[in-house]
């Protein structure tokens, strides 16, 4: 079966997941994001590429940051952006997801940016559009359930390549709540596809499924043992809502074992970079001295995220 993200010519028409995406497609997105990054530095932060196109932000789950960066990216491409607060509208009246989509296509939508609590929702929309022959309408996954967050994975890859130039030869640690993290999953697929030789996932057993090793990563439960030799340390957000269950004893306990402090960071390579997808919980997964320190590239990640989303939107809309 054909990859539903690609058209008959192997070109990207939807971005749903990094899993199974060929390395050359990922590389092209990263390469395309480079000139877009410089547009953010101009006085006129806008190019006319998507002028006249309508981009619908369909956020079935709240996310101020991701929605905003997609909105900025679309506006810098001169698209018209329509933000739909779905939770408060049709679905609560009983409309199905695909009926909502069909109605928006009837309003001449050109692209959907979809965030949904259910894994597979963006895939469902893309398959529906493909099946009904509306291949001029594109879908970009902005995070679905525990499944994937491909633009976050891509901006993480862009950041790593920006500072480390190449993936070959790198050791990357991804630390924290791996179990619930679509960010971790997307980044793992991206890193392995791009030929990163050593990816370590680190967390307590309750937040780190042992089956992760089938993704080609090394599973580790001791942060101090995992950090030596690391070029990149990616800290994940510990979702406060998870703490109430039996998964973790306390935030303090988690910080003691898995929180990144200057003392633990010193175990990694001297030029290691520290990343975080945000929003950060200072004092839970990351110490303020690290978050604000010289190794942190957390704010550049946000800036690069806009360029990467511009690249994704302009590639899929052109195919």
């Amino acid at each position, binding site marked *: 079966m054909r990859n539903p993200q690609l058209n008959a010519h192997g070109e990207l028409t939807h971005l749903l997941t990094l899993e199974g995406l060929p390395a050359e497609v990922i590389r092209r997105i990263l*390469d395309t994001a480079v*000139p877009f990054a410089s547009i953010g530095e*101009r*006085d*006129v932060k806008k*190019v006319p*590429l998507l002028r006249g196109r309508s981009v619908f932000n369909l956020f079935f789950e709240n996310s101020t940051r991701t929605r905003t960066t997609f909105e900025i990216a679309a506006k810098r491409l001169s698209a018209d952006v329509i933000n739909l607060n779905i939770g408060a509208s049709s679905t609560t009246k009983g409309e199905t997801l695909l009926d909502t989509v069909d109605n928006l296509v009837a309003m001449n939508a050109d692209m959907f940016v979809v965030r949904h609590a259910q894994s597979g929702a963006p895939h469902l929309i893309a398959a529906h559009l493909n099946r009904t022959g509306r291949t001029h309408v594109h879908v970009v996954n902005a995070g679905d359930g525990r499944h994937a967050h491909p633009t976050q994975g891509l901006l993480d890859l862009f950041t790593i390549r920006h500072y480390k130039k190449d993936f070959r030869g790198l050791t990357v640690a991804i630390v924290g709540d791996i179990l619930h993290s679509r960010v971790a999953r997307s980044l793992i697929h991206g890193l392995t596809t791009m030929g990163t030789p050593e990816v370590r996932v680190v967390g307590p057993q309750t937040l780190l499924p042992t089956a992760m090793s089938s993704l080609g990563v090394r599973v580790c439960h001791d942060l101090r043992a995992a950090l030596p030799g690391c070029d990149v340390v990616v800290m994940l957000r510990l979702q406060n809502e998870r703490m109430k269950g039996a998964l973790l004893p306390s935030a303090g306990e988690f910080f003691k074992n898995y929180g990144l402090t200057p003392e633990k960071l010193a175990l990694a390579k001297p030029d290691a970079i520290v990343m975080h997808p945000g929003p950060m919980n200072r004092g839970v997964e990351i110490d303020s001295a690290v978050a604000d320190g010289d190794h942190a590239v957390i704010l550049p990640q946000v800036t690069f995220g806009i360029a990467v989303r511009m690249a994704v939107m302009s*590639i899929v809309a*052109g*195919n």
Partner: protein
Amino acid sequence: MSSQIRSDEAILRMQDEAAAAGLPDAATAFAELVERMRGAVAFDARFVGIYSGGAWLAERLAEAIPGNHPVGYIDASFYRDDYARKGLKPELHATRLPFEVEGASIVLVDDVLFTGRSVRAAINELFDYGRPASIELAVLVDRGGRELPIEATYVGARLVVARELSVVLSRTADGTLALGAEPNSEQRHA
């Protein structure tokens, strides 16, 4: 309208084919272009090369023409009018204009002038950086076939080529130039 680095043998073969097809010698065209620009361009004109062929042509012209000519580079892919038909091209360059565009005398530089659409896109992008005092256009080769009211200020050589052919400027690692003609690769998924 592309430019590539090729091997010496490939260049020699292209030079033979070019002579057979009636294409001018690239070095002669370059000398002619320098001759026309010398004394005519502003002393402090900024030379902005259009990627990719115009980029190193702009560098060569900045060395050859007296005055102070800072070089910039423009990739106007985000301003092209064929995005809806052809999408974004795979290899992009970042536009780099390491000087103030506002109030500057600009000479846009390209290797081959054909439809005029690249130049239109480049002018549009320039204006997003500021309002230049003036924009001129220098091209190594004008092959006719314009689809927009755009003309070059300085031309190295003029020629007539069938529309189906692309005129391609190539260079060896040591900087030898060669003009060639090859079938148009415009059609996508043809």
